[in-house]
C-alpha cells in the first residue's frame, strides 16, 4: 500500500479503502483523507512512508484510553453497571473483569441483573463459580432493579471491594427497555449514593456504524463512563470507536480478545492503531 515514490490519487484511494474496511465510517475517513490531501498540497507531507505513521498519530490523537478508574477514598464497594445491546459480550466481560479484581485479592460480588433471557442467570452463576465471586440473583422474570439493589446492599454488608451488575441485552431503540435501564441505575443509587461509579458500555468489534448510535443512546439514557470493545480476536478491527471517541469523548477501558477468563486487556491506543490498517 505505501510502496510508492510519491503520494498520488491512487495511494489516497487505497488508504480510503483500508480505513473504510476497518469500519472507521465514511465521514471520519473523508475528513482524515482530506486533511492528508491538504498537507500533501502544502508539501507538508511528501513521502508515502510517512503517510502511515502520520495517519496513525492522527487517529491516536482522537482515541481516548483510560487507566483504571480509581475508587475515591472510602468508597466501598466500587459499583460497575454493564450495559449494551444483545449478544455483544457483557456477561462474559463481567466474568473477565471480576477475575482481574479477584487476582488482586479483591472481594467481588456479581449481580444477575438479566432476569429476562433464558439461562442468563445460570450463565453468570457459572462465571461466579469460576472466579470465586458471589452471585446475587432472584427468579427469572423478577425486577432487575431489585436484583441490583440487593447486590449493592450485599456488597455493603459483606464489605466487598467491587459489585458488578449484569443487565439484559437490549436494543438502544427500544424506549421501554431503556427506561428500565434508567430505573436500574436510579435504584443502584438508592442503595449506595454515588453508585454506579462506572457505567461500562460493551461494544462488539464486528458492529458497523450502528455502534455510534448505540453509544449515543446509551450515553443519553444512563451516562456511559467507559467502553469495552469485544471480539477483537476476529478479523473485525473495531474502527467505529474512532468516531465514538471523537464525538462523545468516552474512554475505551478494555478490549476482549477471546472467550476465556484471561482474554481481557486494558485498551492500548498505539496497539489498536497499529492493528487498524
Amino acid at each position, binding site marked *: 500500500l505505501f510502496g510508492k515514490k510519491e503520494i498520488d490519487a491512487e495511494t489516497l484511494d487505497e488508504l480510503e479503502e483500508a480505513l473504510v474496511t476497518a469500519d472507521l*465510517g465514511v465521514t471520519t475517513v473523508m475528513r482524515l483523507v482530506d486533511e492528508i490531501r491538504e498537507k500533501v498540497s502544502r508539501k507538508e507531507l511528501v513521502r508515502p512512508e510517512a503517510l502511515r505513521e502520520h495517519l496513525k498519530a492522527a487517529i491516536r490523537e482522537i482515541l481516548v484510553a483510560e487507566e483504571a478508574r480509581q475508587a475515591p477514598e472510602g468508597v466501598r464497594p466500587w459499583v460497575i453497571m454493564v450495559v449494551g445491546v444483545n*449478544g455483544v459480550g457483557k456477561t462474559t466481560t463481567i466474568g473477565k473483569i471480576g477475575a482481574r479484581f479477584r487476582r488482586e485479592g479483591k472481594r467481588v460480588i456479581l449481580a444477575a441483573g438479566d432476569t*429476562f433471557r433464558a*439461562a442468563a442467570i445460570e*450463565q453468570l*452463576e457459572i462465571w461466579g463459580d469460576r472466579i470465586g465471586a458471589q452471585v446475587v440473583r432472584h427468579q427469572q422474570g423478577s425486577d432487575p432493579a431489585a436484583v441490583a439493589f440487593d447486590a449493592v446492599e450485599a456488597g455493603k454488608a459483606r464489605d466487598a471491594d467491587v459489585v458488578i451488575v449484569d443487565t439484559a441485552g437490549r*436494543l438502544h431503540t427500544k424506549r421501554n427497555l431503556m427506561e428500565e435501564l434508567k430505573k436500574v441505575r436510579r435504584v443502584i443509587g438508592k442503595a449506595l449514593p454515588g453508585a454506579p461509579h462506572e457505567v461500562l458500555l460493551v461494544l*462488539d468489534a464486528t458492529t458497523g456504524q450502528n455502534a455510534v448510535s448505540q453509544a449515543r443512546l446509551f450515553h443519553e439514557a444512563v451516562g456511559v463512563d467507559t467502553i469495552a470493545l469485544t471480539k477483537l480476536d476476529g478479523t473485525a478491527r473495531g474502527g467505529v470507536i474512532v468516531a465514538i471517541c471523537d464525538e462523545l469523548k468516552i474512554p475505551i477501558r478494555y478490549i476482549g480478545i477471546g472467550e476465556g477468563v484471561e482474554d481481557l486487556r486494558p485498551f492500548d491506543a498505539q496497539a489498536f492503531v497499529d492493528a487498524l490498517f
Partner: protein
Amino acid sequence: SLSEKLSGVFRSLRGKGRLGEKDIQAALREVRLALLEADVHYRVVRRFVEAVRERAQGQEVMRSLTPAQTVIKIVHDELVRMMGEHVAPLDVAGKPPVPVMLVGLQGSGKTTTAGKLALHLKRRAGRDPYLVPADVYRPAAIDQLQKVASDVGVAAYPSRPDQDPVEICRAALEEARKGGYDTVIVDTAGRLHVDEELMDELRRLKELLEPREILLVADAMTGQDAVNVAKAFDEAVGITGVVLTKADGDARGGAALSIQAVTQRPIKLVGVGEKLDALEVFHPERMASRILG
C-alpha cells in the same frame, strides 16, 4: 436521506429529458456515501455503483419522476434485484428427520433463532421439530436451548457439556428417528471463521448430519467484516441460506447486501425481536428501502 440528497444534486438541472454523465456522477457519489454509511462493504459498493451507472447512462427521465427520483428508482430496483435474486423458502424436503444446522459468529443469535425456527416450522408448516444443543463450550448454552425448547413446546436432546458435539448429533439423529420427528435443528457454538479447530469441528458436524440447510446466522448490525465471515463460512461448509438477526433495531443492514454479493445465497429469514415468535420471512423490498435510509 438519500432522496433529499439526490434532489439537492439535481436541483440545478432543469427540464432535462435525459440523465447526462455529470448528473450521474454527482448522484452516484451520494449513493456511494449512503451505502457505505449503511455498512455495505467497500468493494460491494464499488460494483453496485458501476451497475447503477450502466443502467442510468442515457436513461430517460420518466415522465412522472424528477431526475432524482429516476436515479433513486434505478438504485432501488437494482438493490431489490440483488437482494431478491435468490429468494427461496426454507428447504426441509427429504427423508425425515431433515437436518438444519445453524452456524455463525459468537452472539449472533443462533440459539434464539433455533427456538424461533422450531416454532415457525410447528405453527406455519405443521412440522414436528427436534432441537439439538451442540454448544458444549459456552456456560449454560445447553440450558439456554432447553429452556427455549420448553418455551415453544418442542423436544430437545439432553446434551451434556462433557460430550463431543459430533457424538451429540449422532445420538440426537437416532433419537429423532426413533421419536418420529421430521426436522432436526442443530444449534452450534458461536465461533470465529479464523478458528481452525472450530471450523474443522463444523466440517465434521456437516459430514455427520448431511444438513439440508446450513444457515449462516448473521447480525444485522455487522459492519465491513460481514464479507470476511460469510466467505469463510461458505468456503468451509457451504451455506445454503442466511438468517439476519436483530433487524428490529436501527442498523441500516448493509451487511445483508454484502453477504448476498459474496455468497450468492438467499436470506431466508429475519429475526425481529427477542421473543420466540419474532421471526419473519425475508422481504427484499423492505431491506432495500432500509439500506438506502
